[in-house]
């Protein structure tokens, strides 16, 4: 299908932009170890598993924000939305491809982070991993939409701070609490919402 092909080509581009600096993966590894070292010094000996899990989640949110911050930088700096929206590809494909790229970034970080975390704090179970994976989806779906809004300059003043904050907190709450069904619900609702509204975000003319 051309839609999937488009998404593939765009996602490939996004990943290339990420990986252009070939050292992304080693960087990720370094980043995770540095972050764990920070946590090590922040938390005293014998900290409860629960506290450690709290750290895990905030590290996650932070990494996601980091990934989202950079998501549309290339598009904005070079005015690439202009070029992209003239192509016949569906605009939602741009969103989907970017979400996939950010998700890949996030997943790569977590593939390093979760085992390292488990080794250091032995505070990891299957439920947490599932919650992390589900939370990733929601964060990426919503974050990419808002990231594009911020970049496309439409309504950026209002929407980004106003929407992202309340939109991201439920993920955190659901994730920390381990309410998987809630995360699934959240993901479904907001993925559909973002998929449907993205075109209004990037294109001014119909």
């Amino acid at each position, binding site marked *: 299908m051309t839609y999937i092909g488009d998404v593939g080509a765009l996602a490939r581009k996004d990943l*290339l*932009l990420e990986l252009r600096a070939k050292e992304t993966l080693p960087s990720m590894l370094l980043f995770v170890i540095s972050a764990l070292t920070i946590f090590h010094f922040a938390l005293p000996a014998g900290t409860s598993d629960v506290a450690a899990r709290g750290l895990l989640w905030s590290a996650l949110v932070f990494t996601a924000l980091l990934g989202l911050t950079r998501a549309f930088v290339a598009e904005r700096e070079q*005015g*690439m939305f*202009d070029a992209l*929206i*003239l192509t016949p590809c569906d605009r939602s494909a741009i969103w989907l491809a970017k979400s996939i790229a950010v998700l890949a970034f996030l997943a790569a970080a977590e593939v390093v982070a979760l085992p390292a975390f488990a080794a250091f704090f032995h505070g990891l179970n299957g439920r947490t991993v599932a919650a992390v994976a589900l939370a990733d989806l929601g964060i990426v779906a919503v974050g990419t939409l808002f990231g594009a809004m911020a970049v496309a300059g439409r309504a950026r003043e209002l929407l980004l701070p106003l929407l992202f904050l309340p939109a991201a907190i439920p993920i955190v709450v659901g994730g920390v609490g381990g309410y998987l069904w809630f995360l699934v619900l959240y993901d479904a609702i907001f993925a559909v919402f973002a998929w449907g509204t993205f075109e209004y975000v990037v294109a001014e*003319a*119909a």
Partner: protein
Amino acid sequence: MIRVHGLGKRFDDRRVFAGVDLDLADGLLLVTGPNGSGKTTLLRVLARLAAPSAGTLELPPRERIGYLGHSPNVYRELTALENLTLFARLYRVERERVGMLLERFGLWEVRNERVSTFSRGMQQRLGLCRALLHDPSLLVLDEPTNALDVQGLELLDAVLDEPRLHVVATHDATRFDARATERLVFA
């Protein structure tokens, strides 16, 4: 191909232009006027990149439009080849055309280098390639002569000689005088 009537564009409370009427099938529409008179704004409306605030317009579908703005609109961190391959995929154009265009615009040698190491003129050439990739039926060029050397200008002339509708904004009207079939002068 372009049929607009009573076209107007405002930014908030500033009116940039109003009451533009056009009816063009092919040839070259030359848009001239002083700095800040609204050339870029008009071109963006004609390329379906901006919504007009007034008027009716009939334009080719967006995938038949090629646009080169003030910036070349290519990814700086990708190579020339990667940029064009991406757009070739999105425009459903065969890969061969990419090689042909790179060759034609003198970028074949540097196809595997990142755009960020290109000189401004090389970027402009790449932007032209991108805009031409899908052989659009409406080609909108905003001051395309910028940064082009003598050979680049000849390439541009050759592009304008191809049969399609061209809309070109420029400060160097004399250069295109012979080719222009229509003129729009902003005050």
